[in-house]
C-alpha cells in the first residue's frame, strides 16, 4: 500500500469487548477470585512505589485486563516490585499481589506457548 495521502485510517481507541481475547481475564478470575471485588477506588495505585515513579497504574492495568485489553499489561507489570503495599490498602481485600503474580504467570506461560 502506497501512502500518498499523508495520513492513514485511525485505529479505534475504544475497547471492543466482543472481539477482545479474554483468556487472561478468565484465568485471573479463576485463580484470584478476590480480584472481582475491585471497585476502582485507586488506593492501590496511590501508594504504589512504581506508580509514583512511572505511569504504572495497577488499578488500570487490572481493569483493562478484565475487559480483555492485555496488550500493555506485560510491559506495565514489569515495573512492579511486588512490595505488597497495594494489598495492605485495598478496602475490598483484593489479593493484588497475587493477582500481579498470576498475571505475570499467565503472560509467561503464554509467551512460552507462542515461542
Amino acid at each position, binding site marked *: 500500500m502506497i501512502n500518498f495521502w499523508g495520513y492513514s485510517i485511525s485505529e479505534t481507541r475504544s475497547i471492543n469487548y466482543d472481539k477482545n481475547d479474554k483468556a487472561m481475564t478468565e484465568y485471573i478470575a479463576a485463580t484470584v*477470585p*478476590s480480584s472481582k471485588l475491585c471497585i476502582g477506588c485507586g488506593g492501590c495505585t496511590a*501508594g504504589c*512505589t*512504581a506508580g509514583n*515513579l*512511572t505511569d504504572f497504574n495497577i488499578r488500570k492495568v487490572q481493569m483493562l485486563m478484565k475487559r480483555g485489553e492485555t496488550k500493555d499489561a506485560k510491559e506495565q507489570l*514489569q*515495573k512492579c*516490585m*511486588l*512490595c*505488597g*503495599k497495594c*494489598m*495492605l*490498602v*485495598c478496602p475490598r*481485600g*483484593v*489479593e493484588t*499481589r*497475587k493477582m500481579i*503474580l498470576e498475571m*505475570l*504467570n499467565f503472560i*509467561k506461560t503464554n*509467551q512460552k506457548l507462542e515461542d
Partner: protein
Amino acid sequence: MYYDHFVLPFTIGLITLLIYLCFKYYKWIKSFPREERKKIRKGLFSLQTIRSGWEIFRESLLHHKIFKTNPMLGYMHMTFAFGWFLLIVVGKIESMVYHTSAFNPPYFAIFFRYFHPANETFPYSETFAFLMDLILLFLLIGITLAITKRFYSRLFGMKKTTKQRAYDLLILTVLWLIFPVRFLAESFTSGLNGGGSFLTYNAGNFFGSFLPLEHLSYPAWWVYSSLLGLFFLLLPFSRYMHIPTEMVYIFLKNWGVKQGREYNGYSEIQVNACSRCGICINTCQLNSSCDINDIQPVYFLRRIRNHEPLSKQAENCLMCGRCEASCPVGINLNAIRQSQRPDTIRVVKDTYAYVPEPEVKRAKVAYFAGCMSHLTPGIIKSMQQIFEKAKVDYSFIDERAGICCGRPLALSGNWQAAQIVMDKNQEMIEASNADILVTSCPICYKTFKEDYTLKAQIMHHTEYIEMLIREGQLKVNNMDVKTVFHNPCELGRGSQIVHAPENVLKQVSYKITTVYDGKKSLCCGGSLANTAIDSGQKTKISGDTVKAYTAYHPDVIVTACPLCKKTLSKTSTEIPVKDIAELVAEA
C-alpha cells in the same frame, strides 16, 4: 561355618541398600556448588565431625528435640531408633564374645539365637540374653505406641498425624512386623532348644504348650530375614530413607554446608532426611487457623521427593519459620520452599530503570523506614523523635523516593528481579555514607543482612534503641503498662533478634512472659510470602494470634514490624497494637 539359606534375603537386602546409598550420596554431594564441597573437605577432620557424632546420637537415636516438643512422641521415636541401635550393637558384641572374633558375617549377630546352640554357654551369656530380651521388649513397647499413635494420634497431643500413601503403609507394616517376628522366631527357637531370657524363654515355653514349634521355628527365621531384606530394599524409596540420610545431613550441616537459593543435591539430602514426624503440622498456623493441611513441610517435602505437582503448595506458606524452628532434623524448610517458587518476571536491561538516581543526605546513621512503614506513620514519627531525643545525626533515606528492599520479590521466587532492586537500593544506602543503617522493617532487615553487601552496620530499630539506651544516649521511663511481645517472624526466627526487643520492652513497660516469647512467636498472618490464601484467611490467622495474646490480658500488644502492626490492628479492636518504637517514644 554358620550359614543357612534363610540369611540370604537379609544379606542381599543389606548389600543392595549400602550400594544404593553410596551411589545416591555421591551423586548428591557432587551436585553441590564448588564452595560448599570445599567445606566438606575442610570439615571432615575438624572438631565438627565429633560434634556431629554426638548430635547424631542425641537426635537420630535419642530424638532429644522431639522429646522436648512432645515427650510421648519422642519416646516412641527413641524406642525405635535407640532400641534398634542397641539391639544391633549389643547383639554384635554378644556375637563377638561368643565367636571371639570381630570378623563374623553381619547376619551372624542378627540371627545369633538361631546359630547359637542354646546349651553352649560363653562369658556373660546369661547377661547378654537378658539384655537382648530387655531391648526387644523396649522395641515392642515402641511399636505398640506407634500403632496406637496411628489410630489415636490425639493421645500424643497431636491434632493430626502424617497421612501416608499405600507404599508408605506397606513399608510401615514391614517395619512393624520385624520385631514381633524376631520375637516369635527367638521364642520358638527357645521353646524348642532352650536359651533366651525372661522374655523369649517364657514366651517359648508358653507357645510350646499349644503350638507345634518344630514346624514353626525355622519358617519364622525365614520370615524374619525376609522382612529385614524387604525393609532394606524398600527403604530408599520410603520415608525410612531419613534414617541414613539424617546422619549424613547432620555431618554436612555441622561442616557448614549452606542451603542456597537453588534447589540442589543438598536440598535433596534434606528432603530425604525428613522423618515425617509431623511436628511441623502442629506448629503451622495455616493448619490451626485455616484448616489447611496439605502444605506443611512434611507433605511439601514428600511432594518434592515424589515429583508430584507442587506449585500450589509452594505458594501456600507464610514462611513464618515456625516449622523450621521446630523441625527436629533442622531442615532449611523456608529456603527449600522458596527454591520451588518460579521466577516469573522477565528481566531485561531496563527492568526498574525508572528508579531515580539516589539523592540522600549524608549522615552517620541512615534510617530506612521501608515501604510498609509508610503506611504506619506512627512508627516513623516515633523513630524520628527517638533520633532527635538521642541527638543522632541521621538521614531519613527513603522518606520520599524510597523503593522496595527486594525481599518481597525474592519471597515470590523472583530472585533476578530482586537482585536489580537490591542493587539500586544498595546504591542509595551507600550514598548516605552512613556507619549504621537502621530499619524499622524486619523484612528489609533480613534481606539487608543476608542479601546485601553493605559496609554499614545493619540494625533493626529495636537493636538500635537498645544500644542507645545501653550507651546512655536515650533515657526511658518504665511506664505502667502491661505488654506482651509479638516478635515478628522475620526478626526473631528469621534474623535471630530476640533479646534486644525484649530488653527494651522490659525497660519501658511491664512485659508479661508468654509461651510465644522468643522464637516461639506466632505469625500475624499478614505475611507477603503467602499468595495462596485470601484476605479472609489472613484475617482469621490474625484474629487467632490476637486471641492468643489477649489471653494474657495485656494493655498493649507490642510488635516491631509495620506489617505485623497493620495486620494485628485489623483484628485487635480492644487492645491497641503498637510498635516498640512507639512505646519507647512515649516512655
